[in-house]
């Protein structure tokens, strides 16, 4: 990995500074190290030999949320989030990789069961200090920064993984034709199982068959960390698993996974064979939100009316360009009043290893989000990414709001509000 290859893309930044408006990190710090212009300037500085690979680069490279907001307002359309990942990859090579990343990416993420067990073990052992495993797990967005020491986490952490309850394999549905693959993200598998159950209900109602996949982590955590090797291994493992069966569509209720699955061809840049394999499957992947929007789903009525607002996961709104569908779905449910919140598409601050490594910053970004949530007075804060759900719930607790966080599937099936 060498950022020199991206010299052209990096030089395309003309330093206009327009990304400053969009970047949640910059808006919290006001420091150039936290904005696309600055990150690109440093990478250009490295290429042009004014800046050296040292630990000083860790912050500017790793405090990027990868949310892509900068690119959306970038005059020159510079793909900073992607370039930063390349920068991270080279950083890991030149400055060094930490053992806990190896542990996470190579030992835990490829094996969902191991991941779940490790999480339980770490949660129970929370009082005995942060173990190495706990630290590694804390890097995962789905568990959240406070994972290893937070109260209540044991009660919240289900005793068996989702796929312990719903074994991988084919289930019959009530639909006529569609053969659906259900990709289980780590978040649903390990924690947000209620959301998973509701998603499964929706899929079963619409599909002729629903296959709960025996996939592993999509690879996004490794990719965002810049560990491209590990990301490729995980992606390949999944691609091979999918191609052994035949589906009309592969759905996931995690927008982050969905966006990364769609990105697989990019992960294999320069590796033609695997890129072709990825390319062939890309058209199959759908975010749960797209799936519901396309196929429709009628909700049981008779519930008390509720007010909801929606948080756009970065990987939905910018990663996949989904922003209208989720709102349309919510607006069309009887008894649901949808209220748009200000800056709904702003990152919640929980991205990647972020919440762990840049706690204060992450909380600043999150607090801003909570102010916006509060202004809507919504009963439910809905989103479509289990990792965002963890971060948002943390924010709600911090801010002492009454709003509840849930997955869009839970609103669609009527599981929320309860009763």
């Amino acid at each position, binding site marked *: 990995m060498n950022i020199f290859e991206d010299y*052209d893309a990096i*030089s*395309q930044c*003309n*330093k*206009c*500074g*327009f990304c*400053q*408006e969009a970047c949640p990190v910059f808006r919290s710090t*006001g*420091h*150039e*190290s936290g904005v696309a212009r*600055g990150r690109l*300037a*440093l990478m250009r*500085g490295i290429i042009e030999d*004014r*800046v*050296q690979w*040292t630990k*000083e*680069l860790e912050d*500017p490279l790793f405090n990027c949320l990868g949310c892509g907001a900068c690119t959306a*307002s*970038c*005059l*020159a*359309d510079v793909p900073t989030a992607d370039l930063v990942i390349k920068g991270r990859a080279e950083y890991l090579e030149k400055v060094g990789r930490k053992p806990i990343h190896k542990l996470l990416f190579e030992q835990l993420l490829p094996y969902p069961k191991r991941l779940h067990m490790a999480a339980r073990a770490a949660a129970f052992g929370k009082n005995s200090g942060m173990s190495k495993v706990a630290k590694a797990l804390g890097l995962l967005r789905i568990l959240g920064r406070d994972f290893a020491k937070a109260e209540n986490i044991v009660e919240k952490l289900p005793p068996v993984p989702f796929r312990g309850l719903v074994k991988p394999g084919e289930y019959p549905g009530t639909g006529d034709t569609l053969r659906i693959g259900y990709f289980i993200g780590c978040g649903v598998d390990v924690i947000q199982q209620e959301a998973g159950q509701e998603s499964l209900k929706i899929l079963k109602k619409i599909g002729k068959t629903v296959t709960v996949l025996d996939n592993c982590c999509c690879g996004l955590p490794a990719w965002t960390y810049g560990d491209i090797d590990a990301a490729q291994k995980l992606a390949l493992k999944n691609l091979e698993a999918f191609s052994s069966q035949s589906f009309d569509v592969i759905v996931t209720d995690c927008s982050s996974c969905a966006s990364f699955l769609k990105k697989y061809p990019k992960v294999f840049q320069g590796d033609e064979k695997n890129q072709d394999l990825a390319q062939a499957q890309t058209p199959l992947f759908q975010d749960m939100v797209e799936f519901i929007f396309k196929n429709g789903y009628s909700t049981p009525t008779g519930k008390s009316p509720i007010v909801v607002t929606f948080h756009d996961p970065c990987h939905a709104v910018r990663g996949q360009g989904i922003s209208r569908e989720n709102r349309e779905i919510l607006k069309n449910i009887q008894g649901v009043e949808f209220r748009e919140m200000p800056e709904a598409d702003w990152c919640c601050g929980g991205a990647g290893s972020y919440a762990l490594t840049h706690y204060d910053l992450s909380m600043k970004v999150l607090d801003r989000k909570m102010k916006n949530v509060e202004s809507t007075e919504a009963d439910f804060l809905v989103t479509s990414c289990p990792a965002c759900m963890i971060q948002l719930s943390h924010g709600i607790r911090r801010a002492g709001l009454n709003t509840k966080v849930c997955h869009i599937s839970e609103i669609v099936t009527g599981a929320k509000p309860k009763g």
Partner: protein
Amino acid sequence: MVNENFIRELEKIVGKSNVSVTNTGIELYSYDASLVKGNPGVVVFPANTQEVSQLVKAANKEGIDIVPRGFGTNLSGGTISITHGLVICLSRFNKILGIHPESRYAVVQPGVTNLEVQQALAKVGAFYAPDPASQKVATLGGNAGENSGGPLCLKYGVTSNHILGMEIVMADGEILRIGGPALDPPGFDLRGLMVGSEGAMAITTELTLRTLPKTQSVITMLAVYDDIQAAALSVSKIISAGILPNTLEMMDALVIEAVEASISCGYPLDAAAVLIIEVEGMIVGLKEQAEQIKEICMTNQCRDIKIAKNQEERNLLWKGRKGAFGAIARLAPNYLVNDATVPRTSLPKALEQIKIIAQKYECRVGNVFHAGDGNMHPLLLFDSRNEGELEQVHKAGWDIMKACVDLGGTISGEHGIGREKQEAMKMIFSGDDLNTQQTVKFAFDPENILNPNKVIPLSKSPGRPLESFEPTILKRLGGASCKGVVQAMAAIKNAKDAGKSVIVVGADTFSHYGNICKQDVTPVSTLSMTDIIEYDSDNQFITLGAGMSLHGLQEILGKNNQWLPLRPPFFGNKASMGSLVAMGISGPERMFYGAPRDFLLGLQYIDSQGRIISTGGKVVKNVAGYDMTRLLTGSNGSLGIITEATWRLLTRPELCKALSMTGNLDDCFGAVLELMNANLFPAFVTAVPVNNIPEDNGTDQFPKLWKMVVGFEGMANVVEHQVEQCSLLLGKHKLKELETWDYPLIDGCFKDIFNKIAMAPYTLKLATATGKMLDLINVINSIDGIKAQARMSDWLLDFGCGRIFSALDSLDKDQWASLTHGAISLDGHVHLEKAPDDFRREQDVFGGVLRPEWAMMHKIKKALDPHSLFAPGRMPGKKEYEV
């Protein structure tokens, strides 16, 4: 050089985490949006004014240069430290401190972005007019630093027209407040000077902005042309027809192509140019305006004109314009954007020149610019990785500036000089002009530590003034060749040689003005300076000698249905234009039209060394150099003798109509507060007492019943509509007895009242924010002996401008001090426009309490007029600061 100790010192002030000194930290502040680069020694992020002050003091002690920085989006190298100094970044100053739509102002910290202010104001139905295309990421501090403009500036003017006050940290660390919500404080226009000073005079830590109520409706049009020259011609035809759209933006073929490729917003790909024209205001009359524009375009070879049918279509049209820079930016890694300005009618020629220059240097150029005010923005594309290309675009940029100046324009309309255009200053200013500007900077910053070595070209021998030379390109008309100027120069020389001071007498209308000093003064007349040096009615400006009377000027302009929309109070028919500049005064119409400071484009004056110094130019957008025009305006002749001035003009309104209704003061005030942020645009909002002498004699003479008088000026049907709406609004507040009448354009409504007030021994002017007018009245009424004066029936409450004009029979020292204190406590100020000689000898007519900013004024005075040659006594704080 920055050393370890200094860094420790900084860390003590702002905390370690707010100091950046690492290699990467430095690299991150080595650039801004311009092409200039340079490494700072250290970067700090203070949290409050106290910290800024301490930082400045620390830097002073070590002799380290300081560069203030907002979000670093300026295009002239203004935030680059070229001496490896201290960069003070104000990004943490990000709070909006207060919004007061009823008084039309807001207070913000300098690190707030322009867009954040707009969003906050929109919630209360108000807006802030300057709207740079970079508004999402440009801070108010940066806007003020560069005197930024945007599309809306065609109608509303640039940043300088909308900054009321500031808190600044001076080069020695002193914290000072200048201006504020109350208009035009006595003495020099320091905030006028600060705006556009590019961080070289002081560091801004707070700003008071003038806000306006949002208009009701808007019509946006896209005019398509097959010939770019025809588009340019339409622009000047629209303006010279007397229509003032709020925006008139142009894009050429390369830009259209690029925009359509990235955004696709419906610009025809085969067009040579498009114009985006927008008019806004009351619904009534707006359609007619749009029709009129359409007609003008069509007679000027417009292919097609499309009117946006709804908000969506409107957004789409603007999306193209706002994304234009970006779309172009995709065509090449870098661009140099030039922002030279020309008189509007020269746009076709300027475009032709730009094309030829681009061909000569073989660089691609796209034009997207503020056509309405002649502000070009040619974008020259290149790749900075290729040294040869960089040199070529720099040369092309230089030639474009030359071409524009040759057409009577200037080198920068809104982006500033900074480092990039420093040498080009010689195109438009003489050596003496530039040395004078530098002298003012050094009055603020004697050690030259604030953003040093920028704006003014460097002299060959460091530390010495520039040698004498004439501007290399610009030919300034007038000067010593005009009538009366040589005589005045001789008179000044004689007085100087005789060790005397001089005071200008124009028509001798203002001999009662200012304080009386011990110095022996010689009167110098400007009355013979009556030349009309250049009157360009198409471009709507006039340059004329200082001795011409305002009355005479209006007559000349009337022949072209134009005028200078100023009705200064206490101004006789003969009062000269020079005195209008010197005093900078304005009547109640200031709320709608502005003051002399808003209409002056440039000046020439004789300075204390007997030289003719030029300021500004003749184009409406001009940010080249420090704003000497504003410094001179309202300086009461204490910096030099103004010989000629260039004024911006307007087309005469069709109709001037006033209405009056009567009620008690509280009801009037309630109506005022609503009217100030309503969807109505009065030329003035005033009240006068109804009955002259109250019944009971002596105890309570404050008038009970007031007549509110509100005027409207503009297109007849719009005026009629507003008068009607306004009467409804006043009626809602229980005001009664509606009367309406047309009033004369030149004399306006208040000539008689002002004349009456001026008959008293004392003529008093007090100012505060509109929302505090009642409090100010209470202050007056609470002072012993003032309330009981019969003359108090001569009042003019200028609500729209937050001012009170009144007459007094007597005023003693204590009363004067109390009045001053009272006004200051309401963020206001006081001023005696007229007072008996004794008072003027003993007291200070500019205020009974010393104000800290006056010391700064005297520093400037001392630098520019060391022997106090000009108008002694006409500055505030005479006793304390003058010898």
